């Protein structure tokens, strides 16, 4: 229990820290003051300024918060769709099991990043919501896969037979007997999916498919890359923040559950 608690600490402190700075900071993340572009850290701007004079602390805290929210929501959507779907197909067995398994194989081999860019190309101004929708299309796959393999074992359990003999309907068996038993394994996946989503969102923003206001970790890394000679602190800070976020989400997922995880398709 104690160890579990400590494993949740990095994630929790990251979230509260960025929320605190985002709420209490007086500078909005989109405020541009060209005169103070790439200024050094000072009392007014604790982490200095970036391109066109944005306050790095404000951008980083807002971007972190929004990135975490996006990743959390999309990972939860994936969990909500994938886990019952995998459990149901495994419980039915036969062709639903085979079809889902093959579909997952095919989609897992899919170059996710390309698909995201393809879909975003259709929108004139991609926003974080669009990115979320595209990721939600694929977020259920690892959950369905994991639930499928685990539920194949659960299907043969005596308590499932007993529930069926007592007249429980299929939805009731899935909801009351499969999902709770699957929650520990899928919780780990929740962590690694969220971690992968944070990174993917940042990567899309880095190559130019991010939100237009530039409030994303990827945009901050991009600013850092193009100013690495003048203002290396922007790059070091944003890259470290991305690494810490990724690691703490992975650790938090492990604390919530136990077992292995599949990784999000096409993560890097």
């Amino acid at each position, binding site marked *: 229990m104690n160890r579990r608690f400590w494993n949740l600490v990095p994630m929790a402190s990251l979230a509260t820290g960025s929320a605190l700075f985002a709420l209490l900071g007086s500078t909005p993340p989109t405020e541009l003051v060209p005169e103070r572009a790439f200024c050094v850290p000072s009392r007014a701007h604790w982490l200095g300024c970036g391109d066109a004079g944005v306050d790095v602390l404000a951008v980083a805290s807002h971007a972190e918060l929004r990135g975490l929210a996006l990743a959390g929501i999309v990972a939860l959507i994936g969990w909500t769709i994938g886990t019952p779907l995998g459990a149901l197909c495994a419980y039915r067995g036969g062709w639903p099991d085979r079809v889902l398994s093959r579909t997952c194989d*095919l989609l897992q081999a899919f170059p996710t*990043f390309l698909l995201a860019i393809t879909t975003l*190309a259709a929108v004139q101004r991609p926003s974080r919501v669009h990115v979320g929708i595209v990721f939600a299309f694929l977020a259920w796959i690892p959950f369905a896969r994991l639930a499928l393999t685990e539920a194949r074992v659960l299907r043969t359990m005596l308590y499932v037979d007993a529930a069926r003999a007592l007249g429980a309907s299929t939805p009731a068996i899935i909801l009351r007997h499969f999902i709770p038993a699957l929650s520990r394994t899928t919780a780990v996946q929740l962590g690694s999916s969220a971690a992968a989503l944070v990174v993917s969102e940042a990567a899309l923003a880095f*190559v130019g498919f991010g939100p237009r206001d530039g409030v994303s970790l990827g945009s901050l890394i991009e600013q850092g890359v193009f100013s*690495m000679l003048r203002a290396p602190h922007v790059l070091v800070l944003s*890259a470290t923040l991305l*690494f810490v976020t*990724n690691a703490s989400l992975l650790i938090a997922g492990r604390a919530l559950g136990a077992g292995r995880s599949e990784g999000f398709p*096409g993560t890097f």
Partner: protein
Amino acid sequence: MKQLVLRLVEAVAIVVLLATAVFLALRIVPGDAALLVLGDHASPEALAELRAKLHLNEPMVMQYGRFLHGMAFGDFGESLRKPGVTASARVFDALGPTASLAFTSVFLGALLGTLSAVLGAGPWLGRARGWIERALVAVASFPLLALAPLLTWVLAIRLRTCALPGDPDAGAPGTLFAASLLAIPLAAHVGRIGLASLSHLGRAQFLLTARAKGASTPRTWILHALPNALGPIVTVVATQLGALLGGALVLERLFERPGLGSLILEAYASRDIPVLQAAIVASGGLFVIAQMGATAVHAWVDPRARSAA
């Protein structure tokens, strides 16, 4: 034979699915594709002309048929931004740099990963072996997007040992540097899986037999144990290819290198629909070919995989 046909069907299915996605994305979504290309201030005549050129005024089914027919012959139409140049020609020019980047990094990643797996499982390092596993886990959880710019900053600016991002004179060392960055996460994944399967094999009786017959330690590990662990390693490489493609895009942007990724971003920014379609289909094709290559390598080194694949 049946397996091969199935693989081919699956490969074609992935490319067609991706092509259909890009086709639909540019047409079904609310909004006029011609308006997206020409902007809000275009004259009605110019819009009508572009619609006719892109066949946007035909029924959707006919457009799709024309698109698939063109795709089969590698004909995606003319680039909108560079008149007179076909989309396929522009993609073909960009294919070379990306392919060399991707294949160099697969090679480096597989080599480094296998090497660290053998070192981590074999007896040479003694108690220090545990650190190899820990290092692999740490590197595998370091996102490329954070690792690559940081390493570039340290190596190019702090230590001045390699070319800066965007340096047009970087040439072959530049490619090698970019490929090594791309290879790091791949090597970590390969190393972890290889290490796990080699440690599992370490207690196998055929290794004991090999030792009893007088084989040296390197011979036992490299000639007897390693070929048995190649299956999982090749599988990891195949599943990481999608990630590699995304990573290549990020690195092309980081180093401002020409390639498929840069072409996709440029075509997206300038709404060059034929080039965008061709480039996405080509990257899908590159991905599928690499994946089939991985399967073929697996079947070649491991006879058991030929029937089970």
